[in-house]
């Protein structure tokens, strides 16, 4: 019985028999694979590492260090607030400290932590050897590290951002925040967000395309569903923030008045863009944590999860609903009450899927026999804390109540109940659960329990009474309160318990370090878990599985039992006989085997690329805009090199993954990991574009500001130039499609691609002409500024289309393009089509504006 690559409708049992390769000596397989998959030795090897376990751990460790720094800042805040007159910080410093506390906790702790956890675990749970784009993992890490360092250095230099973690403008505009403090936030955080987007793309692709054969979407462990939901939300949620940050930075740098009410801008546009990201952000943080809970509860209750389907439905519900609630952060900005009522209802509705999950978890505990092991303690801490945080969240969604407590200590209390209850406690449950895997060692008994109780008592002592502090009038973000003695005692109590909580976290860290250092070696699969992440030796080898699990092995009761046959090479694609990093690529829905992907191995290009982007960011930060433009050259060069590494110079024969199953390698396949990745990226990119269009619509339809001046030039001239540019773009766009239909001779191909390159350049010229002669000065009015930003966005895409065509031209010159070897053609076509779409839409929008003026 054989499985064909197209995945005929063989039933699961039959196809499972194909998976049986002959057993081999496990140790020999190990050496063979480890030579191919391990990191290079020494420091150089660390800098070149792309392996998901390495990078995932790095993400987690770095984010935990940032958690420590954020925690120290929190202690400074609590010290300052312990007494009425404040302890030692002046207001300027205090403002920097609370802004940095929030920024670090949200962007440098929570998001990277969940990315790291996902990166570390996903390939193991899905039964594969690495993430879809190992170099992208590494690139993301360096972006996160460099961006984080920029923020930290700024803090030690005394120029940290100081306008609060949501950076409301006009306070953060150059008029009221001169200096580079706000730029540090806008540029540094955006730099870090590159890593979030990179992670979101590769997480999505890994989940959709790299599951063990036969692991249907509906067979996935719930953790994977949660991470998929979070990644999808990141793809749609981060672009509005990045768009907002880019606009605000352009306002600060070039005086384009997007948010300046005197020139047709609107400070509320920033709030909309920020919270369009900011609300989904809290669910992006919560979903992976809920994934950890859904994993641990059934295992430690010795049963299966109750209501798998209901939980998946709740995840999907959360993903969609949470994009419709952002206005609940803006209940006091003067939006009409009926609109507020709508968002209030939506905010309450989102509590329903959350409730479904909570009750499914408790039902699971009823069904099984819960054991009070350490991870379970943290889960109980989660329940206790998060339920209360959820209930205060429901209160905050009630508009009139929100009018009272908005921006008070009540909100500080609420947000820490959900963030610490809904993220930190589950993460600690997860760490205690997976530390035996990560370290290969058992924990030292006692410390973990002590840490748990200290944290729990410290936490509630700090934050429970803060609800009351807020209700009796204490706003958030103040540094002294000389006239309000009645807040003194409450604050003192909060501060004392805050220090107790800190001791608890220190104990937790101590326990983890001792475990890694002194713990006894742990046995395989210590929790008797059903997921594949435990079907391997501990700590996991660099390649995870010596052979990949097939249908027979996924979905079994006790993953530990699969470890041995897999290690002996009885699964698919055993060993690394060809000396390459090989993984299986499967179809989205049913996980049928499609082809074998050859993943890149260790390289420092991601590090160099991140460093090159870092240089650009720094130059922008110091206002050296021309130099910044020049610094994009090395970025472009490195991207080119990156792409060149994806090309195969010679034909590669198909690979035997199991007896009778012969699969092609990805170079010869239409639907590669890269094309799925590019689609994910274009989805995020489309959200970015939508954010810009939303900005223009908002400024035109909602904002009260002064009307824009008459546009420069004439309607007819404008129409002619735009039509001309679009026509050139159409011509540029038909080429890749035409080539994909049938690749002509090398000479003809070369000419066609050159033609497309020229047409792309002509489009750029037309856009330049439009900007010079037909558009108003972008510093005069916000609407002109957004139009100019749209034009710039389109130009960037046309430019990249040109780069794509140049790349294909180069490939054709080298003889790498032929009928069965399409090189970058497919991706170029996709990009060119996207460019076409946004160019047409932008033109339509700009025309509509011209008419409405």
């Amino acid at each position, binding site marked *: 019985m054989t499985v064909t690559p197209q995945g005929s409708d063989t039933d699961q049992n039959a196809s499972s028999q194909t998976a049986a390769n002959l057993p081999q000596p496990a140790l020999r397989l190990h050496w063979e694979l480890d030579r191919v998959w391990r990191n290079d030795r020494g420091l150089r090897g660390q800098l070149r590492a792309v392996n998901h376990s390495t990078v995932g751990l790095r993400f987690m460790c770095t984010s935990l260090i940032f958690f420590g720094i954020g925690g120290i800042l929190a202690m400074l805040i609590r010290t300052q607030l312990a007494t009425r007159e404040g302890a030692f910080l002046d*207001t*300027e410093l205090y*403002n920097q400290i609370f802004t940095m506390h929030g920024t670090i906790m949200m962007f440098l702790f929570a998001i990277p932590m969940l990315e790291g956890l996902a990166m570390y675990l996903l390939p193991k749970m899905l039964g594969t050897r690495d993430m879809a784009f190992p170099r992208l993992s590494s690139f993301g890490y360096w972006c996160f590290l460099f961006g984080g360092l920029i923020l930290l250095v700024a803090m030690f230099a005394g120029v940290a951002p100081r306008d609060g973690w949501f950076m*409301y403008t*006009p*306070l953060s505009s150059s008029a*009221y925040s001169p200096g580079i403090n706000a730029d540090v936030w806008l540029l540094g955080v955006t730099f870090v967000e590159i890593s979030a987007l990179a992670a979101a793309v590769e997480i999505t692709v890994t989940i959709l395309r790299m599951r063990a054969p036969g692991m249907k979407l509906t067979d996935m462990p719930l953790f994977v569903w949660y991470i998929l939901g979070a990644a999808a939300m990141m793809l749609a949620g981060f672009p509005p923030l990045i768009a907002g940050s880019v606009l605000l930075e352009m306002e600060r740098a070039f005086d384009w008045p997007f948010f300046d009410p005197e020139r047709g801008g609107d*400070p509320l546009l920033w709030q909309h863009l920020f919270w369009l990201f900011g609300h989904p952000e809290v669910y992006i943080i919560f979903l992976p944590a809920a994934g950890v809970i859904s994993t641990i509860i059934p295992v430690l*209750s010795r049963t299966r999860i*109750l*209501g798998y389907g*209901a*939980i998946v439905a709740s995840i999907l519900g959360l993903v969609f609903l949470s994009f419709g609630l952002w206005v609940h952060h803006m209940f*006091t*900005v*003067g939006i009409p*009450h009926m609109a507020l009522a709508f968002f*209030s209802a939506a905010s*309450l509705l989102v509590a*329903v899927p959350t*409730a*479904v*999950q*909570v*009750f*499914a978890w*408790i*039902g699971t*505990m009823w*069904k*099984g*026999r819960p054991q009070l092991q350490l991870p379970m303690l943290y889960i109980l801490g989660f*329940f206790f804390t998060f*339920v209360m945080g959820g*209930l*205060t969240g*429901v*209160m905050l*969604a*009630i*508009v*009139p*109540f929100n*009018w*009272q407590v*908005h*921006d*008070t200590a009540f909100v500080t209390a609420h947000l820490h109940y959900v963030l610490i209850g809904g993220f930190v406690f589950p993460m600690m449950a997860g760490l205690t659960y997976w530390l035996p895997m990560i370290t290969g060692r058992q924990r030292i008994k006692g410390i973990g329990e002590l840490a748990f109780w200290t944290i729990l008592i410290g936490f509630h002592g700090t934050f429970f009474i803060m609800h009351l502090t807020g209700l*009796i*009038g204490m*706003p958030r*973000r*103040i540094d*002294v*309160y000389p*006239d*309000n003695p*009645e*807040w003194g005692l*409450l604050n003192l109590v909060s501060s004392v318990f805050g220090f107790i909580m800190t001791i608890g976290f220190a104990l937790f860290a101590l326990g983890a370090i001792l475990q890694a250092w002194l713990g006894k070696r742990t046995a395989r699969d210590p929790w008797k878990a059903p997921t594949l992440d435990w079907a391997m030796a501990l700590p996991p080898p660099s390649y995870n599985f010596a052979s990949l699990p097939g249908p027979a092995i996924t979905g079994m009761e006790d993953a530990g039992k699969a470890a041995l046959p897999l290690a002996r090479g009885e699964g698919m694609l055993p060993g690394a006989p060809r000396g390459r990093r090989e993984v299986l690529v499967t179809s989205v829905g049913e996980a049928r085997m499609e082809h074998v992907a050859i993943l890149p191995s260790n390289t420092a290009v991601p590090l160099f690329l991140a460093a090159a982007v870092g240089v650009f960011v720094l130059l922008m930060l110091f206002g050296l805009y021309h130099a910044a433009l020049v610094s994009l050259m090395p970025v472009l060069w490195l991207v080119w090199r990156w792409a060149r590494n994806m090309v195969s110079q010679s034909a590669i024969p198909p690979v035997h993954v199991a007896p009778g199953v012969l699969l092609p390698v990805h170079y010869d396949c239409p639907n590669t990991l890269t094309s799925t990745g590019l689609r994910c990226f274009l989805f995020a990119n489309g959200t970015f574009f939508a954010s810009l269009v939303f900005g223009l619509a908002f400024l035109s339809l909602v904002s009260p500001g002064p009307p824009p001046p008459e546009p420069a030039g004439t309607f007819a001239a404008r129409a002619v130039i735009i039509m001309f540019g679009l026509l050139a773009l159409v011509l540029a766009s038909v080429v890749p499609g035409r080539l994909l239909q049938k690749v002509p001779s090398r000479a003809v191909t070369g000419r066609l691609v050159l033609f497309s390159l020229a047409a792309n350049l002509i489009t750029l010229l037309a856009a330049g002409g439009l900007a010079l002669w037909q558009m108003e000065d972008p510093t005069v009015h916000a609407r002109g500024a957004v139009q100019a930003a749209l034009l710039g966005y389109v130009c960037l895409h046309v430019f990249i289309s040109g780069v794509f065509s140049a790349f294909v031209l180069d490939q054709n010159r080298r003889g790498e393009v032929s009928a069965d070897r399409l090189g970058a053609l497919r991706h170029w076509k996709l990009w060119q089509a996207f460019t076409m779409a946004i160019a047409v839409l932008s033109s339509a929008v700009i025309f509509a504006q011209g008419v409405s003026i």
Partner: protein
Amino acid sequence: MVSLVKRAGSVSVPLLVVSACSSPLSALNPAGPAADAISILWWIFLIGAGVLTLFVMCLIAISFGGPRQVSERRWTVGLGVGFSLVILSGLLVSGIAVGERLLPKEDAIVVHAHARQWSWTFSQPGPGGVWVETERDLHIPAGQPVDVRVTSGDVIHSFWVPRLAGKIDAIPGRENVLRIEADRPGIYEGRCAEFCGLGYSGHRFRVIAHSLDDWPESIPLIPAEEAE
């Protein structure tokens, strides 16, 4: 009923709370209809949240009693969807009803509040169309609704007198309206409630409610109709 809830609330909380509630910026020490309605909401929420937390914690405690037969539908659809929807819809309706009641509707006295880093200027129309300005203190008649039109001259601020009503933001380029009303004459502390930079902690003001009999000479009192 309402006063019963209130009393239950204030009896069940410790002494510390009761004394703290009388703070000059306390939303739990209402002195006007809007703040009053919201504080009642709060006491109801508090009791409801307490009961629900207790309920969930009991469910969890019981789970340690050994394996049971459970019905998936009862937990996910029954408790997860049905139970929560019932509670949430009740909340939503009460929230919207209270919110609607607090909106500026029928005519009221109109005053302007202009926020800057870091001061508050209040103005009200005097006889003959002249505007009378006061710094830091807003004078209003007790027992009458007053619409405060809130604007900003620089960054975003927020107008908040917790004992009288909720807050509304002062946003440059916009004018927002908040209805306040003081039941009795007195001095009500107010403050800015949106982070506005270095002077934020001290960005305060007062609302002084007078009975009509001893209205200060210097501040003209304009009835609603004329103010229009």
